[in-house]
């Protein structure tokens, strides 16, 4: 193996992990992330419309290659069958896996669902109530935000990135701001790092509270659902009080922060977080001693460490399977000094492990916020710093890669810029990384357990419809 595939194979057999893959038209680039969180690029020129596939080396690249094939018309030699991902309208046989056998049948759910859920079509291949295989078709509301960013000024494109997803607004915005600041040779001073860390931890708090509520809803656990939904609402109101937006949108800017919280605002926020923490701990204990609820979680929707690694699962879902990766350990552009990931006692990779992982990370986030909210927050600006050079980026290309651990895991934002304008933007969100794992976790489980499995990942549709 030599050339592009050889380089990718070498990097993966070393200590790097697959981060993202994207096409620009003439080139396909793979982002690999080292153990210290530093990204590197390996590029392959598109020759006669195609490049070699790396999906056999990094199965996690499966969706990336399918997306690139649909949106950029690139062929991937060796990726067969190449099923459409973003492009809809293909015949059923072309985008689903063929499942046959005695009594096997299909159940189609969506794309329109009951409840407040985005569009997604799930096609279950089942025997009785047992799921054999799940094909998910998302991307129903793909907005072309990445393409819309092209040609815009770096600071303008932030509006598009922040609107990609409400639930992950801060994560995506910080990943983009990091990438921009790398390109602009800006360095965030400690105050800017601190305020961004506060914002992403606030986002994690309300998301994790919401996820616990959703898991309760998945099994009809009304009391837990109501308790954690109320806590989610309190966390969002705190967001609103601090930033003027319940989902923290607009709080992150490229190269600066306008947020100015005086001592009393910071103290009020810290007190409210303490109170939410106390109430969350009480509600959590109620659920811990509810046998009917706990009985639903164990052994359902298992993604073990091996599969999690192969599928490139990120975030709490990966840590629940025993992978100890957390990008907060090496976030030099955020304030996570001395951070160690919270790891479960039972890394079973099932719904219970993912559910318990949410709590572990919640308490950790409350601790972090308690430390970070110890003094007023003042407006700050990024300072000129050394230019960041991404290994593997071509000469003359201004490339920045932001890597942020959001509530759902690692989000990678790749920015190629020229003269202060976006040339190419690729936002590989944690939800994009984890959707294939939802389908994998469903196989072997019971059909009525799927909503629970889905909610134990609680991924965004908007984060892939970008």
């Amino acid at each position, binding site marked *: 193996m030599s050339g592009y595939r050889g380089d990718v194979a070498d990097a993966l057999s070393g200590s790097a992990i697959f981060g993202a893959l994207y096409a620009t038209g003439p080139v396909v680039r793979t982002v690999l992330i080292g153990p210290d969180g530093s990204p590197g690029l390996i590029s392959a020129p598109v020759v006669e419309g195609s490049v070699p596939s790396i999906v056999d080396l990094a199965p996690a690249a499966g969706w990336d290659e399918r997306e690139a094939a649909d949106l950029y018309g690139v062929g991937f030699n060796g990726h067969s069958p190449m099923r459409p991902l973003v492009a809809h309208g293909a015949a059923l046989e072309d985008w689903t896996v063929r499942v046959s056998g005695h009594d096997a049948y299909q*159940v*189609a*759910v969506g794309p329109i*669902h*009951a*409840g407040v859920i985005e569009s997604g079509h799930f096609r279950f291949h089942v025997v009785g*109530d047992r799921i054999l295989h799940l094909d998910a078709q998302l991307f129903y509301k793909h907005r072309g935000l990445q393409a819309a960013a092209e040609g815009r000024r770096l600071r303008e494109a932030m509006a598009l990135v922040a609107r990609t997803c409400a639930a992950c607004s801060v994560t995506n915005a910080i990943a983009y701001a990091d990438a921009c600041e790398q390109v602009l040779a800006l360095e965030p001073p400690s105050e800017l790092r601190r305020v961004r860390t506060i914002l992403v931890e606030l986002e994690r708090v309300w998301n994790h509270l919401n996820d616990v509520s959703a898991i*309760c809803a*998945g*099994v*009809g*656990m*009304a*009391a837990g*659902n*109501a*308790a954690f939904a*109320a806590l989610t609402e309190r966390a969002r109101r705190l967001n609103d009080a601090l930033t003027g937006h319940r989902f923290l949108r607009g709080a992150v800017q490229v190269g600066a922060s306008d947020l100015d919280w005086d001592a009393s605002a910071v103290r009020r926020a810290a007190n409210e977080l303490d109170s939410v923490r106390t109430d969350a701990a009480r509600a959590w204990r109620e659920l811990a001693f*509810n046998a*009917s*609820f706990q*009985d*639903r979680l164990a052994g359902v929707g298992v993604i073990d460490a091996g599969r999690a690694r192969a599928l490139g699962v990120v975030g709490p879902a990966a840590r629940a399977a025993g992978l100890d990766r957390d990008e907060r350990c090496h976030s030099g552009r955020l304030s996570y000094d001395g951070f160690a990931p919270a790891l479960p006692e039972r890394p079973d990779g099932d719904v219970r492990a993912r559910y318990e992982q949410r709590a572990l990370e919640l308490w950790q986030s409350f601790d972090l916020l308690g430390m970070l909210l110890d003094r007023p927050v003042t407006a700050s600006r990024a300072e000129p710093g050394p230019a960041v050079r991404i290994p593997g980026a071509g000469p003359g290309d201004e490339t920045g890669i932001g890597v942020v651990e959001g509530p759902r895991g690692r989000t990678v934002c790749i920015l190629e810029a020229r003269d202060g304008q976006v040339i190419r933007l690729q936002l590989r969100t944690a939800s994009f990384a984890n959707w294939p794992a939802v389908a994998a976790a469903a196989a072997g489980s*019971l*059909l*009525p*357990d*799927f*909503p629970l499995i889905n909610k134990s990942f609680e991924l965004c549709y908007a984060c892939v419809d970008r």
Partner: protein
Amino acid sequence: MGGATLAEASVQVCGGVLGAPLLPGLIQAAKARLQGRRGPGPLQPYRELRRLWSKSTVEVEGATQVYRWAPATVAACMVAAVLLVPAAGVAPGWGVGHDAFALVGLLALARFAIAAAAWDTGNGFSLMGASRDLTISVFMEATLVLSLGVASLSAGTTDLRGVVAGTAGGGAWATPALALAALAFGIVVVAETGRQPVDNPDTHLELTMIHEGPLLEYAGRDQAYLQWAAAARHWIVLVIAAQVFLPHGRTVAVQLVALPAVLAVLAGALAVLETVVAKMRVLFVPRLLGVGSALALLGVAAWLAPR
């Protein structure tokens, strides 16, 4: 017809036909309060029925008369069952009698009609719900028959009027038989009304549905019939629970006066249960009902045991 019978007849028909939707309404309202929500009032099911009644039905392409007649069949079964289940120890005949086992048949017929309609339309969610319902009903009906059987043994008759009279007062509780049957019937109440932990009537998650699944293909009046029938099921099983499996007075007057209060308490108990208990894994539901059957069998054994 004596005064007691007349009073019973009006309670039975007005309660079973007109009052039944109040029971799920009460449960829903109580659930909302328990969860810290304001929620809709207990009269909400009536508003739903009025809304549905004024809307047109839908026709499923390719479906036959089986689909068309299922809601009316289900509603008719429930009307007959409401007439069959006496609200006290006396009741007019109504032409359907009062046999406990005829009741089991009527409930099963309604289930069959809706399952056949699901088969007729071929809708995935309907079929899934119907197949789960039929699977569960195999176990549920056994528990229902056994628990009613114990009550019939205690009273010496399968006529429900006789059963209500025979289990009145403290005498029937002298042996553990009726208490064991009451526990079994409690499980039947949860299963037959489609409440948690067996089924979740408030869910929007189609994949988890049991009783709600086959209802998805219906709209307008058809849906109104089916919603009313679901409410009537609450009335039927809760009235039996109140007048057979819970201590109740000997005189018809006491039985009739106490009934609304007992029904409200039972509705409240279901609301509490549904708030603090999660829905169980669908494959474990037969086990729960198996426990019910075992309890009822113990009740039979306790009755047969020499005193």
